[in-house]
């Protein structure tokens, strides 16, 4: 990743234009050529510097639902439970964190009724109580980290 890649990341975490030749327009603002911008984005996607390039959708406004949830998993069962939880397609992300609640995951479903159904499946499979932390209010969501 060089200085130009950093400039691209810092400038393009949003605001990509909707027009006939958007890469050309975005490249021009960065004083790059269209080919250079496309090639660099391609390379940064291939090398996983970028996880995606395109529209970021708002799950709830597409009719879907997202819920953060956590389990307190006994250490001896951790790998087994991680396998059981990860096996569900509704589990979009899952992280180990250091706390009594040591497994934190996001359930993402196409319809809101999918969430309690997924929680029931996890509780039945693991025998553990799922603590759900649905968002009551969103103050900020954005990725604005400097490269």
């Amino acid at each position: 990743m060089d200085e130009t890649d950093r400039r691209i990341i810092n400038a393009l975490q949003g605001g990509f234009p909707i027009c006939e030749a958007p890469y050309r327009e975005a490249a021009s603002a960065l004083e790059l050529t269209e080919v250079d911008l496309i090639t660099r984005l391609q390379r940064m996607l291939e090398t996983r510097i970028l996880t995606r390039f395109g529209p970021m959708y708002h799950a709830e406004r597409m009719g879907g639902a997202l819920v953060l949830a956590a389990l307190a998993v006994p250490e001896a069962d951790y790998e087994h439970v991680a396998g059981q939880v990860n096996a569900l397609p509704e589990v979009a992300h899952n992280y180990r964190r250091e706390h009594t609640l040591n497994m934190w995951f996001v359930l993402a479903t196409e319809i809101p009724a999918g969430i309690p159904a997924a929680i029931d499946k996890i509780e039945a499979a693991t025998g553990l109580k799922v603590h759900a932390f649905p968002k009551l209010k969103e103050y900020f969501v954005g990725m604005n980290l400097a490269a």
Partner: protein
Amino acid sequence: METSTLDAEDHRLIVATQGGLPLVPRPYHALAAQLGLTPEDVMARLTRLLAAGVIRRIGAVPNHYALGYSANGMSVWDVADECIDSLGEAIGRLPFVTHCYHRPRALPLWPYNLFAMVHGKSRDEVEAQMKQIAMLLGTSCRAHDVLYSSRILKKTGLRIGN
């Protein structure tokens, strides 16, 4: 926009773009050809979805580990319910906070109701960010913690079907 105003073509457009935009000089024309729509229709639909907030933004999603942000903490705070909204807005404006939400407590195990994801290049940097948040919250905050992710067990993101 109510979700019921998403029509079948919107849904197809979402499915076609949720993995990313085509990396070709005229990406919206490429999508139009793929979906059997006109380029004008594709651009009008994306403009409308963006204005309605169904699309949060269009651009690059960096892998924060690749940018050197290896310390990623879920900071959690127990703040008075009556002032959580103004505090949450203020915390959400901090440059190192990528997500900030009001969520329910789960007493007695979990007293925290304000969640802010913080990102630093080291745990020391995150600890300094925690102090900054604590100063902003002042006496409205009764307890706090930060839970670092010590392992990614799964990361696929939301995908809707066809």
